[in-house]
């Protein structure tokens, strides 16, 4: 036996109680959907049904918007700001108290490794509430006039890749600024949002301030098109983002959109190669590559290409793919069969267009949705795998000779969410960072997030920022 073999280290699921069926959370109560319909949510690591989730229709959305409107005008907008903030502090504290429960539930429903849900998603979600709680009574200092006003009722639609973290990114600033919320989690990952509803109850958050309606894209469209919604906040694909932009044309609704990306991760010849290899792995394989800001286009300076690829393959051979509940797991399950099919389609296209595929030699479990960490070398800028967001553990490798060429290739995309730069030379990093048309630049690091740090993209990666003062102002109307 290999002396470095790991024994299984499974996180217990005893801490989580999953109900057979979940209803909608409207006006502080769990209510049966007027649609009368439910749909199953599964554990993508074994394809077993975890629970049935209510499928909200237009009437349900209307009730949720009505509850949010009443809560806004009667309670939330009239409450002293400091008191509003105290509810957010309460929520942050309860999230910390119940962090492990949330982490396990997230991993069960999403398929991400427990190490990530436990150490990244849930602590960051709590941190977002704590950060924004402190803003609630300081809005006059946010740089949008001395009497900034909330929009009113905000419709929020979030994706399946970071379900609880995206909820926090949306709900915390909306509430801190005095808005009320109708939130729709993604249909494959509703469970932590519904557990969050329980947190709202425990925090005694006034009824109707947060409403959670579950369902698929149709439910999302019902929210976007509801006349009682004042603002939309959406995280998801650029395709749907454009549909939302079209839907709200000519209305008074404003929107914050966090959309897709195809980030370049640039490795200069003077980079610390071993650190860069860790950064490459984190950049593309974190969360199975289900990350809008993933470093999915690796740009390596030509003279170090072979050395980097060799080291990267050695490192990738040590990535542990498997049971997301195992504390040693690096790569968990792909979130859904549909996403797996999309990854496979693009990987097939990569081979067909002439790029060379290499996948880490790892055992794929018999049940569930999985994809081995994969790189393509010899990728050209016209290949689909260099242009389209794969949203999976698949890295496309290109080369460059000069810094100018690196910047040109990095910017050759309609997206502009994030980028990485690796060099030990400070002036080169700043030169490159200032020329990259992307909203977040990670220099000698990758995939770092913080509530105090604005996040969001240029070009077709979206509108506005989330996090920090900049993200806060997306929920405030300026006063003059």
């Amino acid at each position, binding site marked *: 036996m290999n002396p470095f073999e790991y024994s299984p280290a499974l996180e217990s699921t005893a801490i989580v109680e999953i109900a057979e069926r979940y209803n909608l959370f409207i006006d502080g109560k769990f209510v049966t959907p007027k649609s009368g319909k439910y749909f199953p949510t599964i554990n993508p690591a074994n394809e077993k049904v975890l629970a049935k989730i209510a499928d909200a229709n237009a009437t349900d959305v209307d009730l949720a918007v009505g509850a949010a409107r009443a809560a806004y005008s009667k309670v939330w907008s009239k409450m002293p700001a400091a008191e509003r903030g105290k509810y957010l502090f309460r929520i942050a504290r309860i999230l910390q108290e119940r962090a492990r429960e949330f982490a396990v539930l997230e991993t069960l429903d999403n398929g991400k490794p427990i190490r990530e849900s436990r150490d990244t998603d849930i602590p960051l979600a709590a941190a977002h509430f704590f950060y924004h709680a402190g803003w609630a009574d300081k809005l006059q200092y946010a740089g949008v006039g001395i009497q900034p006003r909330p929009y009113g009722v905000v419709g929020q639609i979030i994706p399946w890749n970071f379900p609880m973290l995206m909820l926090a990114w949306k709900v915390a600033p909306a509430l801190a600024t005095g808005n009320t919320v109708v939130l729709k989690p993604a249909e494959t990952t509703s469970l932590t949002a519904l557990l969050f509803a329980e947190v709202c109850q425990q925090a005694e958050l006034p009824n109707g301030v947060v409403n959670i309606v579950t369902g698929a894209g149709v439910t999302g469209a019902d929210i976007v098109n509801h006349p009682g919604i004042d603002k939309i906040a959406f995280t998801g694909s650029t395709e749907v983002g454009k549909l939302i932009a079209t839907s709200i044309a000519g209305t008074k609704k404003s929107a914050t959109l966090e959309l897709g990306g195809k980030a370049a991760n640039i490795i200069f010849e003077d980079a610390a190669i071993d650190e860069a290899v860790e950064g490459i792995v984190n950049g593309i394989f974190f969360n199975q590559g289900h990350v809008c800001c993933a470093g999915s286009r690796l740009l390596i300076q030509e003279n170090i290409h072979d050395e980097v690829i060799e080291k990267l393959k050695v490192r990738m051979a040590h990535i542990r793919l498997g049971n997301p509940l195992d504390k040693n797991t690096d790569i968990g399950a792909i979130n859904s069969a549909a996403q797996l099919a999309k990854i496979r389609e693009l990987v097939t296209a990569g081979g067909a267009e002439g790029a060379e595929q290499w996948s880490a030699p790892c055992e794929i479990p018999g049940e569930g949705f999985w994809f081995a960490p994969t790189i393509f070398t010899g990728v050209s800028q016209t290949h689909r795998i260099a242009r389209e967001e794969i949203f999976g553990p698949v890295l496309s490798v290109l080369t460059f000779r000069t810094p100018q060429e690196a910047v040109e290739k990095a910017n050759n995309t309609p997206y502009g969410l994030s980028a990485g730069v690796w060099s030990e030379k400070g002036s080169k990093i700043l030169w490159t960072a200032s020329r990259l048309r992307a909203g977040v*630049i990670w220099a000698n690091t990758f995939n770092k997030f*913080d509530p105090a740090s604005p996040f969001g993209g240029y070009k077709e990666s979206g509108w506005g920022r989330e996090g920090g003062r900049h993200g806060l102002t997306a929920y405030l109307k300026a006063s003059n």
Partner: protein
Amino acid sequence: MIAVPANRIDVLKTYKLFIGGAFPRSESGRVYSIKDSKGNHLANPSLASRKDLRDAVVAARGAFAGWSAATAYNRGQILYRMAELLEGRSAQLVAELMALEGSTKKLATDQVKESVDLLVWYAGWSDKISTIAGSTNPVSGPYYNFSTPEPIGVVAIFADAKPSLLNFVGAVAGVCVSGNTAVVIAAEPFPLPAITFAEIMATSDLPAGVINVLTGSSSELAPWTASHMDIDAIDASGLTPKQLKEAQIAGAANLKRIRVHTDAKTPERILNYMETKTVWHPIGI
């Protein structure tokens, strides 16, 4: 001895477009007739076409790298220079505004003065906007993290109508002081002050292509502008609600930032055409 004939004929100006630092006619050969507030013919400015718009966007995109990389101090001085020249051209602009807007000499003069002061106000923002809108962010980890606003790229401006010079100057200065380049579609009934102002820009050390001015029909040019994939944002202040809605629908193709302003003098005119960039770097030894 200077002897001017009593019946001397005025030398009139041909009002042309301003693209890439030059003053071409519309490639279409089209013009439209502009009358003064009493209905007398004043001029035949160019009726810009879709192709003129395309040429103007090419010029603006070409100028972006240089203008956005110019120092803020330099950009501020060029805007200030425009204010100096605007002050010197006051008489001509007053005459145009009186004729076109039907305003009294006092009102027209005040509008020009206010436009000069507005340019000076925007010029001063060039090296302060990043201080106001940027930040270092106290992230929970060993990282230095800062956010800074950057110009968004090429902005199309549908300038609002009366007071047409003030609106034109406010829109252009706000968009360009941060390093953006612009294609401005002058308010349809008021093209003359816009082109006269272009003559000021042409002689203010403003690099060619940074600001391009088209005259013509907003309703004709708005759809082409909204669907143009190399325009990053639109100041739609001069569009009607119906045109705005159509522009928002077409603009969704590349998720254009489409804004409407009511005030000529506000930092929002600068910040609405900037993107926040956040940079992380580890701290360590």
